[in-house]
């Protein structure tokens, strides 16, 4: 590529553009092919995961009658819904505190506490929370056992910081004058916020809740630390069976999870675009 001159220059633009586009295509293939392969192979009749034994939904049937996965999935959904709701409340309060109450004592510490869980490795958060729960159990007798409650607390703590970031971004852009007008007309701040600002925030709140819900459903590392006997979440169940190797049942389960999430995200995306 040492040629000079206008015409060659234009051709090089074309060549580098082609290079960029093919790398983009490679990137998307890299991101999506493994999942597609998994989905196709989940319909394989054979137990041997390398031999194609014909099209079948056999493994979906096996999965539907496996109480291990059903119980774990039910627990995971309960934990995800509860922790996402808690995270939504705490995260929104945190966002309001940061945007509306400008300078308060300890603001820098607060900002650091909100930013840290976003990037902290899961193993550290998991170990730290577990040791905290054990220490609390030893000193104040609560939590007496680990399971649903400790899972919810752990996931809400991590997810509230994500919610805070999402809501804070929207709240920071919003026009404050409507709320002020309501207060001038005699509404208390809490009422003005609930009636004016909350409805305007709704898309961000929905996005935050969904993010918190997905994070909880997806977490295996922190959950492994903070859960106790008898409370196995779906990712923990999947992880322990995946460590034994590739299995057709997990292929089927993975396909269901991916499809449910994809449909949910696309629906949420379309809903938000329709509103905007």
């Amino acid at each position: 590529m040492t040629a000079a001159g206008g015409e060659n220059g234009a051709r090089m633009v074309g060549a580098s553009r082609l290079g960029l586009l093919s790398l983009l295509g490679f990137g998307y293939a890299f991101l999506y092919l493994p999942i597609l392969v998994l989905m196709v192979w989940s319909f394989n009749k054979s137990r041997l995961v390398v031999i194609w034994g014909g099209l079948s939904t056999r493994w979906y049937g096996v999965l539907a009658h496996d109480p291990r996965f059903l119980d774990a999935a039910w627990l995971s959904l309960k934990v995800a819904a509860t922790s996402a709701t808690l995270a939504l409340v705490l995260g929104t309060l945190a966002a309001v505190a940061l945007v509306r109450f400008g300078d308060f004592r300890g603001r820098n510490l607060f900002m650091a506490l909100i930013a840290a869980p976003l990037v902290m490795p899961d193993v550290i958060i998991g170990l730290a929370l577990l040791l905290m729960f054990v220490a609390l159990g030893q000193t104040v007798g609560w939590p007496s056992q680990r399971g649903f409650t400790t899972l919810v607390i752990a996931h809400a703590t991590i997810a509230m910081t994500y919610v805070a970031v999402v809501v804070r971004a929207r709240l920071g852009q919003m026009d404050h004058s409507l709320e002020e007008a309501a207060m001038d007309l005699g509404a208390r701040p809490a009422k003005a916020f609930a009636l004016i600002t909350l409805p305007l925030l709704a898309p961000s709140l929905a996005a935050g809740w969904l993010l918190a819900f997905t994070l909880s459903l997806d977490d295996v590392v922190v959950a492994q630390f903070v859960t106790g006997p008898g409370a196995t979440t779906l990712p923990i169940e999947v992880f322990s069976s995946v460590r034994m190797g590739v299995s057709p049942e997990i292929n089927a389960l993975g396909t269901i999870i991916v499809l449910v999430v994809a449909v949910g995200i696309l629906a949420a995306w379309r809903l938000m675009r329709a509103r905007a």
Partner: protein
Amino acid sequence: MSGGRANLWGARLVVALPFLWLALFFLAPFLIVAAISLSHARIGIPPYEPVVVWRHHWPAANITFNNFARLFRDDLYVAAYFGSLKIAAISTLLCLGLGYPMALAIARARPDRRNLLLMLVILPFWTSFLIRVYAWMGILKDQGLLNLLLKSLGIIHHSLVILDTPTAVYIGIVYSYLPFMILPLYATLERQDPALLEAAADLGARPWRTFLSVTLPLSFPGIVAGCLLVFIPAVGEYVIPDLLGGSGSNMLGKALWDVFALDRDWPTASALAVALLVALIVPLALLQRLQRRLARTVEAGS
């Protein structure tokens, strides 16, 4: 005025509730980890001795630095420490190598297509991380699909061993963290003024030269942010080396879990967590500064 006082209390509550929650369930746990990393291990529940004991009616420290000394003495931990840093660094560079052209291509795409292209990058991030890592197991194993494909094309005759090697860990990390690299890169690339590129071209710069002297330097904050967002979680990664790296893979996150769950040695696990945090302090501080600077420029711009 009673209303004003109620408002003040309301405002305090709004700040206090999330603050106290994070102090109790995020800050305090870290202090406990630090304390237990200095405690004596014992067999029992919990498997460590209290760090403060009463001696002759006075509190006395009951601490030891043996847990940290063990980390330095044991070659396994030293190897895990540098192994984690090396694997994370190489994966970050690979991520940058693939993520930069992708981000650039999206930023230079037609404006009405950019959102969709970006959405396609983010979408996998929302679907199960565990399932996506697992999907690679079926592809990379000895009788996996990649070997099957390469053999049937006649490119290789003997199976390549990829699963349970560092290569598989690199693939897994790049695959899982690619969106974290692309998003900040795209944010800086998309904001660049196209007039700058035209000016460079008008002055006779070739595309490569324009890229090296205009596009690349201007996207530097995005490069740093993307690299930190990949590097930091990759250093502590546990699921990917466990599933794809096999028993030979040696990373801190995996070592921490093994010490905690298999050996039930909580003081050493805590010392490992402190060591992991120390390794991450510089990148974490850099990220914090960068984010504050980016936030300021965004606020100033809008």
